[in-house]
């Protein structure tokens, strides 16, 4: 049996961040103010319609849809870390599982809102449910994202049940309703063998179930593009290409979150340099896979240069999108891979910077996938003003694009103030086993 003092230390360490301090209030205040500013921009869009954006007849998918793809992509990491690594017995990842799951839930849930933001008449969303056709990948996407949000919620919540007991018993200064919520959420947990058995089995089922569903959300999102025959989207590897890219941005998001939580919540003993080292290696692995898919996606059509694709590819390789295209590939993928091969770079601070680059690159990569194709339809664009042919996002649109990103930060911060972000029970069990 583990000595009581050790258990107590773990519990109090891991519960210590559940309190409202000055820094949190300041940060949350900042987030909420910025969010309100962005919401004001959204209200002008509700009032005037999509005319306030740079979208039009030709480029009808711009930053909003790029944002959506980015959100769905980043949410995939929950499946990789908490389920795939968990199932394969990689014990080191256990303390990161909840961080990954929180990121997954926040991004997946907000992704749905991003789609609504792309609608000039959001009240017509109801028509998707009234008149939607199950032949349409859009319907599949709505379905599978909903499933993923549900499963992610359960996968976040169920391992939390024993911890809820700790939250109820061991936190002080928490308001009474919060205590009651903890009590309700702990589902009368007493830690009996029978309860543990049911809990472990449920987590196992969800861990397996989430794999096809997570692959599904991003594959279906890629099909939104790949099922049309437009240059740049008409590709048979779009599913795995998107999924591998998703792991890249997800890993980067987790690394950033690890960094922030570790330093601001004093978790240096629980999120160690070993974790960063392993995450760095994971990021290199998924980035290499993604690089491989990039090679396929651009080299193969680039070698053939078929008539319509040639125009599109020239714009990417040497034309108006070239700077963005190559920056994304070089600074968001190739340089991070090379840097992370060095042991010195696999430390928290350098990794924070590298991960920020990777995440930024991942966002612009989605832009590069969505926008240039829209600018190159098969039928030539004729007799329209120049501004119709190229897409230039407006300020209002940029603010509206920022809103969901801020919302994710609010959710991620908020959840980490309500629940322990390192699983307490598992950490205790782990110490017991290794004692």
């Amino acid at each position, binding site marked *: 049996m583990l000595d009581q003092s050790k258990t107590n230390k773990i519990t109090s360490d891991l519960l210590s961040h559940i309190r409202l301090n000055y820094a949190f209030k300041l940060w949350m205040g900042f987030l909420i103010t910025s969010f309100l500013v962005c919401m004001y921009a959204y209200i002008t869009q509700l009032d005037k319609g999509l005319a306030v954006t740079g979208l039009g007849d030709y480029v009808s998918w711009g930053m909003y849809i790029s944002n959506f793809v980015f959100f769905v992509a980043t949410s995939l990491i929950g499946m990789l870390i908490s389920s795939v690594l968990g199932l394969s017995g990689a014990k080191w990842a256990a303390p990161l599982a909840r961080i990954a799951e929180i990121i997954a839930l926040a991004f997946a849930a907000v992704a749905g809102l991003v789609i609504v933001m792309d609608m000039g008449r959001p009240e017509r969303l109801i028509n998707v449910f009234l*008149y*939607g*056709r*199950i*032949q349409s990948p859009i319907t*599949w996407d709505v*379905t599978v994202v909903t*499933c993923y949000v*549900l*499963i992610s919620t*359960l996968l976040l919540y*169920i391992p939390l*049940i024993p911890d809820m007991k700790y939250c109820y018993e061991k936190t002080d200064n928490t308001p009474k309703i919060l205590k009651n919520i903890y009590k309700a959420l702990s*589902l*009368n*947990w*007493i830690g*009996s063998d*029978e*309860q543990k058995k*049911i*809990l472990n*089995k*449920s987590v196992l*089922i*969800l861990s397996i*179930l989430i794999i096809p*569903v997570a692959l599904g959300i991003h594959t279906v999102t890629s099909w939104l593009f790949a099922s049309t025959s437009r240059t740049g989207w008409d590709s048979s590897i779009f599913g795995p290409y998107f999924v591998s890219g998703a792991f890249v941005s997800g890993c980067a998001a987790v690394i950033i979150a690890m960094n922030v939580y570790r330093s601001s919540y004093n978790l240096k003993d629980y999120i160690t340099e070993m974790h960063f080292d392993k995450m760095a290696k994971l990021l290199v692995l998924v980035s290499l896979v993604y690089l491989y898919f990039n090679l396929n996606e651009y080299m193969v059509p680039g070698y053939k240069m078929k008539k319509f694709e040639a125009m599109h590819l020239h714009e990417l390789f040497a034309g108006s999108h070239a700077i963005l295209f190559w920056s994304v590939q070089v600074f968001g993928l190739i340089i991070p891979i090379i840097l992370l091969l060095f042991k010195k770079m696999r430390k928290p601070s350098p990794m924070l910077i590298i991960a920020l680059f990777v995440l930024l690159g991942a966002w612009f990569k989605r832009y590069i996938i969505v926008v240039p194709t829209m600018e190159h339809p098969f039928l030539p664009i004729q*007799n*329209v003003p120049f501004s119709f042919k190229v897409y230039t996002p407006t300020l209002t649109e940029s603010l509206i694009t920022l809103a969901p990103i801020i919302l994710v930060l609010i959710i991620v911060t908020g959840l980490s103030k309500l629940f322990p972000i390192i699983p307490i029970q598992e950490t205790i069990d782990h110490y017991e086993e290794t004692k």
Partner: protein
Amino acid sequence: MFRKNIIIKITIAFIITAFFSLQLNAQRWDVPSNKKAKNSYIKFDNNTAKSGEEVYTKNCKSCHGDVGKANGNKTLNPQPPDLSSTLTQELTDGELFYILNTGRNAMPNFKNTLSEEDRWKVISYIRSFNKKYVQVLSKTDPSKSKLVKINMNFNAATNKMNLSVVANEASGPVVLKDAEVMLFVSRYFGKLQIDKTIRTDKDGNATFNFPKDLPGDSIGNLTIVAKVSDEIYGEIESQTKLTIGVPTDKPSLTAKRAIWNVLKLAPWWIIITYTSIVLIVGLFLVLIVRNLFRISKIGAQQ
């Protein structure tokens, strides 16, 4: 010496270029005199100009821009002129009408896309930008076109369609001589012209070669449209249905289950795959929620 030579060459080159570019700009319209004198039977006023503006916005603005603002499409060569310009306004109504009927270079012809009335109305709109313009009304009486009858006769043996055009004047029938006649068959999106545009003979007859292989509806019906335009009687259009096409009974593309069809006619494989996936995931979720209740119950019992 050398320098002088160069200067002379440059000057010559300059003059030649200037000459040619002038040529391109000044290429005016060569309109036959009888067409040039044609006038509108519609009196131009604010109302006609207003309906003309609608026609203009839909059909002309994409190239010519807003009248008076010289903001037409600059990428075309020659550039579509601003129609309020003196050069354009100096053209007679008949010339404008002729330009609309024939087109040139990038300027399309509107003979078959706009009715005669709409063509005159858009001219009325163009004229509304010219304060000095005074209209000369045509002597044709538009109500006269109602007197005209077009008879269509199909000869199955020779595959010829014979048209006879007669105006039933109060004084007795008058045949329309030397009137322009066109024959069309209706199809999805517009009309298909049959044979060439011809003129009626001295007996008011016109004969067209009719193809044998036009697909009709399920029993071979074709909708035939004849268009006559005459100096005195104006434009007359007449339609009839004749069973002279090839019976075609293709099933509609939306008759069977297909990807592109409505929800009710979705392909079975999609319905089955989709619903079974949703059911399986749903079933597991129900199972998990049940487990949560079990956990709670065990704790409450002890």
